[in-house]
């Protein structure tokens, strides 16, 4: 059995633990041995996004230490993975750290991306109309389109719908969500309304920050629609 070191983004750990556990169960389902090191904290994306690069560098150093090789690292967050892969270059890392980073970049994956690359297919059944929100960083930085991907191909009964005209940001944006709260909410209202208009049974959102944002907006709209990460939905399909 191949080993996987689990990367649990800070928001998942404290706000959406069920997404983390679903990731664990799904990886086990595919035969991986999953490990979790509780010494991890944060990849530093919060601070990079904030423009606080000195603090981000400290987080990055700790992150690189926690996930020293050679095991694969997998976590449920396209934006965190993209931040490590693409944005650590802004941090002016020392030589040794830079090498650690180069090594990690190639064995760190978002869980959905990992499934795609390894050709891991979920087989099962789920009778539901599922509206998909395509989270920005997974789509545009990792390059995985949750709609177009064949992640759903093996699930019978599922009907996938999505706003076709564009993949618009939900308005979370990390620090943006608290720096420009009213605008974040305004974007959220518009974008979530589009999802609600599709009359789904479930809304699927593939990143932790976006899940928080979409849920908050639905709360204020008094809409009782479940918001799940794809791995949760897949697990449901497997368990029939």
């Amino acid at each position, binding site marked *: 059995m191949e080993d996987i070191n689990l990367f649990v983004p800070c928001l998942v750990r404290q706000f959406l633990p069920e997404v983390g556990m679903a990731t664990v169960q799904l990886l086990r389902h595919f035969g991986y041995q999953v490990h979790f090191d509780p010494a991890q904290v944060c990849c530093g994306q919060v601070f990079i996004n904030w423009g606080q690069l000195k603090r981000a560098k400290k987080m990055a150093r700790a992150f690189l230490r926690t996930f020293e090789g050679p095991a694969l690292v997998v976590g449920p967050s396209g934006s965190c993975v993209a931040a490590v892969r693409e944005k650590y270059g802004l941090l002016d890392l020392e030589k040794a750290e830079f090498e650690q980073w180069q090594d990690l970049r190639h064995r760190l994956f978002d869980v959905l991306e990992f499934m795609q690359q390894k050709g891991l297919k979920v087989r099962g059944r789920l009778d539901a109309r599922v509206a998909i929100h395509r989270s920005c960083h997974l789509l545009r930085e990792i390059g995985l389109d949750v709609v177009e991907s064949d992640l759903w191909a093996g699930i019978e009964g599922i009907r996938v719908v999505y706003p076709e005209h564009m993949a618009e*940001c939900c*308005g979370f944006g990390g620090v943006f969500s608290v720096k420009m709260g*009213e605008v*974040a909410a305004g974007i959220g209202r518009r974008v979530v309304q589009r999802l609600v208009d599709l009359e789904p049974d479930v809304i699927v959102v593939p990143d932790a920050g976006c899940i928080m944002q979409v849920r908050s907006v639905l709360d204020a709209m008094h809409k009782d629609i479940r918001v799940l990460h794809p791995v949760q939905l897949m697990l449901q399909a497997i368990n029939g």
Partner: protein
Amino acid sequence: MAEFRRGAKNLRRNAKTAARRPELGAVISRATDHAIIRRREVMQEIDFAAQRRRIQQLRQNATQNLPGLLDRFKARVEAKGFHFHMAVDTNAARRIVIDVAKRHTVQTVVKSKSMLGEEVGIREALEQAGIQVTETDLGEYIVQLNHEPPSHLTAPAVHLSTGEVGEILYKQAGIGPFEKPEQMAVAVRQFMRTRFFNADMGMAGANALIAETGAMLMMSNEGNIRLVTSLPRLLVVLTSVDKLVERMADLAPLIRVIPKNATGQRITNYCTVLSAPRQGQEVHIVVVNNNRMAAAGDPVFGQAIRCVRCAACINVCPVFRTIGGHAYGTVYVGPMGIVLTNALHLDPHARMLSDACTLCDACAQVCPAGIDLPGLILHIRSSGNPRLIDRFKAWVVGMTYAGAGRFKAAFWALRLFKRLFAAGYRRLWRMLGWTGRRGVPRVAGKTFDRMWDDDAKGD
């Protein structure tokens, strides 16, 4: 517009005002959606990636060689009888234009839409000199009547609904009242004809300046540019040095891509190449610098000068689509506005604009000049001194994130707080800035760590 204040320093407050008017976001996102959908359709007819490489390359060649191209352009146009002026900044540009107008005792000007005109405030300057200026693009005329600046590069009145436009035309110009956009357009067109025939001076911008031939490309959908440039005996072309390209052939990808990218049109209705003054016409070309030459050589911001003002990045920006252009408080808005305002030092508080971005990357995907807009915005965000309050917040979060023990303890405290004071918990989030019409994030009753441990015990 009165509700929005000019100046980047008012961004936060303006944005709040705008976000509280969901009708505004509804109107703007509906209009820009049309452009986005059409864009996707017509882009299937060309190889966008290949065209983008060409445009990026030709713009890069040009922006890295501005002084040389400028000299060539100047020599060519002067040889053809154009009058050439270089304006280092806004004041110089205004002075040159007003001097020309005064020398010819100009009383009325017909003008076509130009962002550079907005940048140097040329309409206001002419009006202050007692000259009547008529904007001849429909959208621009409407915002002129409404005493507000344009809210978008290519669609200046995108923030107004059809109903609002009808009302403005009727109240401010006595045109109408009409309900259908077509009726409004026809009526304005008729009214404009007399203005064109009676104007003492025409004023236009340019989309590209061709160094090789000393010609200028002008693109328009309404045909007004042809009238502005051909009817009056006196013409001023107010443009900027970054519009230079080297060769005539460079126009091809620009003409092919810009309209598709901007509005989803296959081609702009009227593409005019002005290559010589017509007989008896006096034409002045005013090329404004306003920090562009220096910015073009900047290792970070140099790429921003490649911008061809297609506005595609604005159409896809979630922030723009929600708050509109006026809330930025600056002439250039949306992703390119954030970047250009900083690159050209157009506003002393330009840096604050970098807050108006979710870093969603949508803009980078559509930019035909290959500008890394999110990267530059992040660069702006991380340079200079953050405000004290932000430094403090970052310090607080930094401390709680500085180790796994603290991290767990902090969230343990938050969890406890939530259990004890439900209302206080909500208020805490509002204080942190999680405001607007949305609920607050719910910290989980059981952390992932607990679930993991429980699961291990269960085995």
